[in-house]
């Protein structure tokens, strides 16, 4: 393939899914009009969801989902060995995601409730970096395809890879939305990392923090805001616990 007269080596890529809804992989097949051009950049070596050809010589492994069973640990370790760069993408891979809500219940009780007496293997939910080294993380539930494309291109070209440091509030203001706190809602936009273009709050739905904490957030001040507005602390806790990415703040009882 030629670009501006230079030849370009296609990135050998693999995409792998663990415990999740596979919605992040699906984003890779979106933006249909530019999809053939995006695929031109890639040499897809292993992507079970779309191809029956499977090879182990990929340089970049995109890993989606969280780890909840021993066979997943082994499969993930093999992928780590095969790949030069491992990218965890999606909130399940980066934080454990909604799957982590399971960890609020005793495991044997959860199994009994769903499967009765049948024995079913399941472990407490772990994020990818709890099991293997992760080189880059792309959070989001689901991820934004633009961000995944940008980061894959950055890996290919050796450019600096970064996520926005500022919170969703910044993007929400840029979209001229009415603040959801003014409508009496608890919104995690002031403390959550931007990069989603404030998609939820622009749909008049409070942010549940799927991208995790922004850099240097002022959590005491945020909590004070919720309390000054006489909003429910229980509701705040439910929201902070939704994607398992505010654990250090959630249990701060100050």
């Amino acid at each position, binding site marked *: 393939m030629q670009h501006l007269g230079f030849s370009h080596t296609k990135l050998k890529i693999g995409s792998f*899914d*663990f*415990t*999740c*809804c*596979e*919605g*992040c*992989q*699906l*984003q890779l*097949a*979106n933006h*249909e*009009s530019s*999809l*053939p051009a995006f*695929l031109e950049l890639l040499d*897809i070596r292993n*992507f*079970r*969801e*779309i*191809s*029956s*050809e*499977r090879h182990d010589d990929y340089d970049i492994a995109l890993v989606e989902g969280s780890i*909840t*069973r021993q066979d*997943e640990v082994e499969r993930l370790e093999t992928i780590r060995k095969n790949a030069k760069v491992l990218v965890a993408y999606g909130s399940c891979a980066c934080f454990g*995601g*909604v*799957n982590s*809500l*399971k960890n*609020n*219940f005793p495991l044997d*009780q*959860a*199994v009994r*409730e*769903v*499967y*009765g007496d*049948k024995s*079913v293997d*399941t472990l407490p939910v772990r994020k990818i970096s709890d099991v293997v080294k992760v080189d880059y993380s792309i959070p989001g*539930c*689901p991820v934004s395809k633009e961000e995944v494309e940008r980061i894959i291109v950055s890996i290919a070209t050796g450019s600096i890879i970064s996520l926005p440091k500022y919170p969703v509030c910044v993007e929400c203001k840029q979209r001229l939305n009415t603040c959801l706190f003014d409508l009496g809602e608890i919104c995690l936009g002031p403390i959550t990392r931007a990069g989603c273009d404030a*998609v*939820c709050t*622009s*749909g*008049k*739905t409070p942010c*549940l923090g799927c991208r995790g904490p922004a850099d240097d957030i002022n959590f005491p001040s945020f909590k004070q805001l919720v309390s000054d507005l006489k909003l429910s602390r229980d*509701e705040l806790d*439910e*929201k902070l616990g*939704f994607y398992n990415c505010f654990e250090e703040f959630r249990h701060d009882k100050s």
Partner: protein
Amino acid sequence: MTKVNCSIDVHHLTRVEGHGDIRISIKEGKLIDATWAVVETPRFFEVMVKGMSAQRVPFLTSRICGICSISHALASIRSLERAMEITPPDAAEKIRLLAMHGETLQSHALHLFFLAIPDFVNTPSVLPLIKSHPEIVQAGLRLKEAGNAISALTTGRLTHPVSLVVGGVSKAPEKKDLLALKHQLEGVLPDLEKTDAFCKTLTIPDFTRETEFVSLYNGITYPFIGGDLLSTDGIRQNENEYLTMTNEYLEEYTTSKLTKLSRESFAAGALARFNNNYAFLHPRAKEAAETFGLRPVNHNPFMNNIAQLVECHHIVHDAISMIEKLLDDPLDQLKTQWTPKAGAATGAVEAPRGILYHHMEVDESGKVVKGDCIIPTTQNNANIHLDLSALALQALEEGKNDKEIQLLCEMAVRSYDPCISCSVH
């Protein structure tokens, strides 16, 4: 003729959502075993919803599935609204139905072009087709894009809807965007014709195993949200009686549950909807079905692919007329204000892969006490399992070799468009 000996062991079948295995053992021409085993890790959504506030639940349950998140959100919303006796405004109902159309079109296009068609043209994926059949790939991508455009405009995002909420919708689409969407949908009508023409060149395997088909039925329209539960064997039930239509049970070899009704197995999905609701299809969709020789009641599972294509015709035409109605609607009543109330009810919707049930029980503070989700693929598992035996036997009689038998079995499973992580949830 030498007798076939083969042991087919497909670990983590490709081109399906989630993780499932096919195992077939044939000794000296005799079928010893044919198994469809789901090996997906369970996530325990029914446990996770316990104690959660009703308004948060659709945002959690939509995460059951990355492909049919709108269906899951709406099944939860419907069960919670019925449990707490909340009536959403008419405009919200219209927007929700349009959202279902978007999801179904996107999902069917993804399945037909990315997952199913490669088998019929003997390629490992859609990727080689970008060069060999650019016209048809572009048509498929435009159809998928149109489905996604509907979802984005009606729910705020392609996957995991943001504006579908208990009580209604949190935001209405802008009229100018609705008009642009209508033009986009009119623009893909020729793509449906191209897809019809292309699919007519494919050989659909000739295989029939008589079974029962279950879908929603309302007697007025082709069903997507709520209604009675109907089977081709003549059983009709109220939505809240979903347990008598599913009879879930467990087997050792699979992490997904299985279901049955009048027979050992039944099927849900596009073909089930078609078989029960043919009369309510758009005339153009009926014409398309006729050209493929698809008439109710059809028992060939491979024809589920064609039933999906027929539904794409219906959806595009119906979505265009629904947008025309929304353009005349002031869209000022979007959400009913509600207060929590104790109750329990079922919400049934037709997800792209078939009838989906959520049943929620809430307490007087609006927190979920008990949740139950029965997934279309769960309902199809026993049917897939039994199809594999019958199909392998037929293929043996036709003198097919192990590679051909494996391909046929993989194609049969893919025809159901299984959503495996969904089925285990």
